């Protein structure tokens, strides 16, 4: 029974990873850009949520109604100014630029908010839980984060497959030049994809801030970015459902590893990641074409 609980906890933890990874997955899938500042942007979102709660006295959960559009705008502007220009040079340049952004963000946060760690409060919900049987405990917060991950990924999937804008995003991802020949300005379409990815970062950062404490360096020191990458790669590059599957599998493997020995949580996750790379480099759900 203890194993069942581990799996349940792993699935819940995987929800956080998946929520974290979906912006990364979208930007990689559409623009082939790996955003190394992803984790730091999530920390900015957590600080933004803290600010909104303190200044506007908003409930934490509602603060995302402000932070999502704000982040979407930042995402679009950042894409049209810095990121598109660096992608025009080369994909490698985008790595350097986003790595630089990561350092700038971290230091700016240190400057303005000090190195003290903080957290976002959502009252009793943070610790409330319900039991299934005698061994399995499900925290409401963990469940809410998993549900948020599923909702965000489902929403994104529906947006991409059903709407005109989503269709254009997929077309541009397939063949940028052919999309231009159909009248689509790929820079604008990429900007929209970046806006959506940044919107999901706002949700992920807020969820993380509620889940645990954060400080200006959390984005890089807490291995969040690494786990998010692993979720994307395990699931299959560019596949949103794959990202959910990848995040959950990573969470489950880590929790089972931690059950064997607490120190093995990270080791189990990394080994699983390497195993996937060796056996199925295109990812669990990936086809060879998208890999």
């Amino acid at each position, binding site marked *: 029974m203890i194993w069942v609980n581990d799996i349940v906890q792993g699935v819940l933890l995987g929800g956080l990873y998946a929520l974290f990874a979906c912006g990364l997955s979208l930007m990689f899938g559409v623009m082939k850009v790996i955003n190394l500042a992803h984790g730091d942007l999530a920390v900015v979102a957590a600080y933004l949520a803290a600010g909104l709660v303190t200044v506007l006295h908003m409930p934490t959960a509602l603060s995302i109604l402000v932070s999502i559009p704000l982040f979407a705008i930042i995402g679009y502007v950042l894409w049209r100014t810095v990121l598109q220009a660096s992608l025009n040079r080369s994909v490698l340049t985008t790595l350097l630029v986003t790595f630089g952004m990561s350092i700038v963000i971290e230091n700016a946060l240190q400057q303005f908010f000090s190195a003290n760690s903080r957290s976002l409060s959502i009252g009793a919900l943070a610790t409330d839980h319900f039991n299934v049987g005698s061994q399995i405990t499900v925290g409401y917060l963990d469940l809410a984060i998993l549900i948020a991950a599923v909702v965000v990924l489902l929403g994104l999937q529906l947006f991409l497959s059903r709407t005109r804008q989503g269709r254009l995003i997929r077309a541009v991802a397939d063949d940028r030049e052919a999309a231009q*020949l159909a*009248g689509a300005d790929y820079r604008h379409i990429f900007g929209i994809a970046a806006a959506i990815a940044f919107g999901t970062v706002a949700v992920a950062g807020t969820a993380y801030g509620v889940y645990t404490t954060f400080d200006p360096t959390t984005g890089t020191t807490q291995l969040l970015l690494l786990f998010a990458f692993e979720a994307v790669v395990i699931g299959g590059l560019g596949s949103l459902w794959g990202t959910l599957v990848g995040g959950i599998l990573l969470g489950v493997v880590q929790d089972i590893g931690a059950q064997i020995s607490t120190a093995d949580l990270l080791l189990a996750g990394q080994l699983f990641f390497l195993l996937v790379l060796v056996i199925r480099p295109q990812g669990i759900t990936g086809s060879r074409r998208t890999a």
Partner: protein
Amino acid sequence: MTGGPLLEVRDLTVHHGQLRALYEVSLSVGVGETYAMIGANGAGKSTLLRAIAGLDRPTSGSITLDGVDVTKLRPERRVASGIVLVPEGRRLFSSLTVAENLKVGASYARKGPWTISRVYELFDWMRDRRGQRADQLSGGEQQAVAIGRALVANPRLLLLDELSLGLAPAVVRRIYGILPELLATGVTVLLVEQDVSQALAVAARVHCLLEGRTTLEGEPAGLTPASIEAAYFGLAGPAGLPQERP
């Protein structure tokens, strides 16, 4: 309409890096005309079409559509002004379905006679297979979808780049068989074709390029096989232009 030609290309020079792909090429295409570019591999035909569509930037020269200079316009803006290219190699959105490919083509369409259902009428097999992914179609079917994707944008000037590339002769004949129907809706066609007899059969005017330079231009009826051969291969023939070498 200004009464002049629909497309006017003047002294167009295009470089690919250090390499000069086109050397001061000029041509004009009248409204409703079918105009064919012929020439050997690497003569610059595709570069010319890409430059007219806006994908390749010219070093010098100008491109005007119905009297309006479009030389500086980005490719997506040229679609709005009525220039649509069916690119070499078809370039469908491979992970999208047939219907989605057509919908993307119609996303920024001008007003006009072409709709997705009209394209389904033009290619009668397409409606039944509209849910199929583009990369599962045969070459000829992909070419048809690529043409359909361009038509639903309602072009005034349709640029067709090597429609016959990699297709069986029977399929090529079927594809070219739709040209009269396109022309009937008022579309002007500028096409690139390696198969000279095919080009001569469909075009009102042909224009031969050799290593980026014009070697021949005129109506098919007024050209002799020998003059075309000379222009195509660069032999000093009766109609061949002086063979200057830089």
